[in-house]
């Protein structure tokens, strides 16, 4: 064999090796956990048996929680669609001013952890509301906080996920060719008629996609029903699983596996619906025209702007003020004034409380580690998916969506099942360590990194890579010297999304944490459950500050990003 042929062979080995390594990795992260869960549901403890299945299905708690889950998820989605849809139409199609600032404020609740949202709203209402006391409007002592209810959960789910509907609808509206609107106007139709007869019918696919996404998110949400539902014993499936798992007994793992499969099946129905609607989108004629010129609101502009901003402030600023005010009082119930205000709670959670201090380090390292690892996986993965059009990887692209599309508890239970016993061959156990959480983060947030990186690839002229190939550079070198620098902005955006989401999450770690492996979400949750609302508020305030600061920092490199990669950027 000649020298050149050896080089050719080495190139082929490198490329196939990398490809199959990635295939294996994605399968390990996405297919293995879900597969393990299904096996547990069918054959608990390794033996084909319907005992656990019968036990779960015979329990009235199962069906109460399922009904509660469906009611809150459907109602929460309806509420989110109403708000998110209206705001998307107003903010995308009309000539309101300060669109960027408004988008940032409106999308911000999505980036704040649900448990923090729940905590903040709890601080806003109720007899002990520091803020209401400040203006002398607190309800009498002993009365119940109105948010501890089904309606409270629906309200907060709707507010939390309205930005999700807003984002999908806005993306759809932006892809709408302006000629279609202009043709309607030229035919003599009023803007409202065009909206009703042209825009809205065409927006059905993104709207349905948004609804499905919102439904799955509401269904899988843990933070809001945990904070608002558990005190009033109003349980949904994720909180039921949490409670069952906390009262660990024989066979409980099989039971929660079946419960999480139940959520998985309901979520799957939503995903399939979305998939069906997304496929319809391909039939549309797409033109490469610029976005439609905004409708002029004329004398309605000021009132509508006021309305939008009032709403944004109501759902964003007021609860955060509630959170802030509670974090500044020495003990829950004490009114806030110049004499009582203190930073003691902050000092306590930052410097004194051991678990809280650990949680900062854990959450930071795990989120940053997951973000970096996922980017390192997704850059070569995106290369094969977008440019090599490998069929195996296109299937895996779908598989990578699975752990994120599934509610977080499903993945958490799957991770427990996978790692409860020590790893085969190595004999090391990941259970009760931070590594089980890191694994779950990698699996769950992989797709958060993959999506921006894939759209980054789609914007790069492939000849840039081909030029390097012609210059003699092999794939590893091309990845390091050409491809990575070119997709870097998108990769950074993806990493930031992962970091923010993981830094704030509770759903996964609530089931996977152990002493020494606490996350910020877990500590906020246990402070609140233990009645320490002031500490919980202080810690939550800090996470909100970190989140907002990181989001704002993206303005530094936003110009280099493909549009739509960062949800909060217009």
């Amino acid at each position, binding site marked *: 064999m000649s020298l*050149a042929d050896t*080089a*050719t062979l080495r*190139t*082929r080995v490198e490329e196939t090796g990398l490809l199959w390594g990635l295939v294996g990795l994605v399968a390990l992260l996405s297919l293995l956990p879900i597969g393990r869960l299904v096996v547990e549901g069918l054959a608990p403890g390794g033996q084909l048996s319907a005992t656990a299945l019968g036990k779960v299905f015979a329990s009235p708690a199962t069906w109460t929680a399922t009904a509660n889950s469906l009611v809150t998820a459907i109602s929460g989605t309806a509420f989110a669609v109403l708000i998110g849809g209206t705001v998307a139409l107003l903010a995308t199609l009309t000539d309101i001013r300060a669109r960027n600032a408004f988008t940032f404020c409106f999308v911000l609740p999505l980036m704040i952890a649900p448990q923090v949202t729940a905590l903040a709203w709890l601080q806003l209402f109720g007899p002990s509301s520091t803020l209401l006391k400040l203006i002398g409007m607190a309800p009498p002592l002993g009365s119940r906080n109105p948010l501890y209810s089904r309606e409270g959960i629906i309200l907060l789910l709707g507010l939390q996920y309205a930005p999700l509907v807003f984002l999908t609808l806005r993306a759809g509206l932006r892809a709408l060719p302006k000629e279609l609107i202009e043709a309607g106007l030229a035919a003599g139709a009023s803007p409202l008629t065009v909206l009703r007869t042209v825009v809205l019918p065409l927006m059905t696919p993104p709207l349905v996609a948004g609804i499905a996404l919102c439904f799955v998110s509401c269904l899988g949400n843990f933070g809001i029903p945990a904070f608002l539902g558990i005190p009033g014993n109003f349980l949904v499936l994720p909180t039921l699983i949490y409670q069952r798992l906390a009262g660990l007994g024989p066979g409980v793992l099989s039971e929660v596996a079946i419960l999480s499969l139940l959520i998985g099946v309901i979520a799957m129905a939503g995903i399939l619906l979305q998939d069906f609607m997304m496929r319809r989108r391909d039939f549309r004629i797409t033109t490469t025209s610029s976005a439609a010129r905004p409708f002029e609101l004329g004398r309605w502009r000021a009132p509508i702007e006021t309305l939008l901003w009032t709403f944004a402030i109501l759902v964003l600023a007021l609860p955060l003020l509630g959170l802030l005010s509670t974090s500044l009082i020495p003990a829950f119930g004490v009114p806030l004034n110049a004499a009582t205000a203190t930073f003691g709670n902050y000092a306590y959670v930052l410097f004194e409380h051991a678990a809280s201090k650990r949680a900062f380090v854990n959450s930071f390292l795990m989120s940053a580690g997951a973000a970096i690892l996922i980017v390192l996986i997704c850059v070569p993965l995106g290369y094969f998916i977008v440019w090599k059009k490998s069929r195996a990887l296109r299937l895996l692209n779908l598989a990578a969506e699975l752990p994120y599309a599934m509610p977080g508890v499903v993945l958490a239970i799957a991770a427990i099942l996978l790692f409860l016993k020590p790893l085969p061959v190595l004999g090391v156990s990941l259970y009760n360590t931070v590594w089980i959480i890191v694994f779950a983060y990698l699996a769950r947030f992989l797709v958060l990194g993959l999506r921006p990186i894939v759209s980054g690839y789609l914007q790069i*002229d492939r*000849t*840039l890579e*081909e*030029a*390097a*190939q*012609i*210059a*003699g*550079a*092999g794939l590893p*070198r091309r990845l390091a*010297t*050409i491809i990575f*620098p*070119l997709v870097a902005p998108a990769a950074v955006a993806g990493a930031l999304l992962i970091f923010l989401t993981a830094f704030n999450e509770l759903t996964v770690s609530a089931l996977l944490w152990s002493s020494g492996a606490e996350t910020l979400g877990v500590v906020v949750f246990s402070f609140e459950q233990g009645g320490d609302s002031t500490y919980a508020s202080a810690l939550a305030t800090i996470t909100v500050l970190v989140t907002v600061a990181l989001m704002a920092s993206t303005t530094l490199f936003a110009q280099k990003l493909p549009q739509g990669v960062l949800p909060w950027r217009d």
Partner: protein
Amino acid sequence: MARLTIDRAQKRFGSYIALDDVSIDVEDGEFLAVLGASGCGKTTLLRQIAGFDKLDGGAIRIGDRLVSSSEQHVPPEHRKLGIVFQSYALWPHMTVAENVAYGLTVAGVRDPERARRVAAALDLVGLNGFAERRPGMLSGGQRQRVALARCLVTEPSLVLLDEPLANLDVHLRASMEEEFSRFHKRTGTTMVYITHDQAEAMALADRIAVMDRGRLLQLATPSMLYREPANITVAGFIGDGMVLPATVLSTPRAGRCKVSVLGVEAVVRCRPDQAVTDQAKLCLRARDIGIAPSGREGLSAMVERLSYQGGFFRLEARPAASNDLVLHLDAAEPAPAQAGDVIRISIHDGWVIPEAGIMDKAA
């Protein structure tokens, strides 16, 4: 230096045949242009030579080395050739010098040798003051020069140029054309130049390969291509040729024969083996015909349109004998006729398209 041998290359995309039995021999040091309209397969051919796609049939050799066949495929990074891309493909995150140095770095060439060669390459394209600039700060012509320097710094034996002038202003093209030509003479590198612009191809190439719908229509020197198109498609494509049905009346003598076209007789060029036939096709160019001097016989035609071209008029005329044909011819100022006038056209030159080229069109 290397010759490039493309032997019955085939490439399909699904049921679409992008390359249909294309065979081209490029001599060592030759400048070959591949000419064709978009979608003719010329870019597919380039990607096969470069190795970006795999061949379905046939073979490609660079020098003596088999690089592509249906069984064997040497990846682009091991083919040791250079490409100048239409989009230039300069890496935006590197300086001009880093762009040019990349191939040397990959090949393991280190400073000071590398720096010396980068400086020499930049000097050659007249960009020695630009080493530390980013590509984004350069004009189109400067980017093209950087791309050229990057391609040539590793001294490849074969250089592929993919429509390198397509994105440049008209006035820049002429100077870049000159630059390519100068380069080719100085380095003696084998060059394959992909273009849709026949003027560019004619000005630069030693030989031109004309492609259409995945097939090679003719491979010849620019002059042969213009004077003796091998088939109807090439005749119509190169130099705006008109193709008319004709009857060959005499066997050729000294490369010319007598033909009858639209009822008028003329003496035109033909192949030495041209047979007498009434199924011939005649290729005419605007400069081959003119308005007959008064009193001479000619082809009767009605002028449909005049357009001023600067110094002369282009006339479009429909012959009385065949209403579905349009002839175009040039006439000096002042306008010799108006739209609606009937003129007589004389034919003083032309080319009888070889029989094989007529069959080809029918197939």
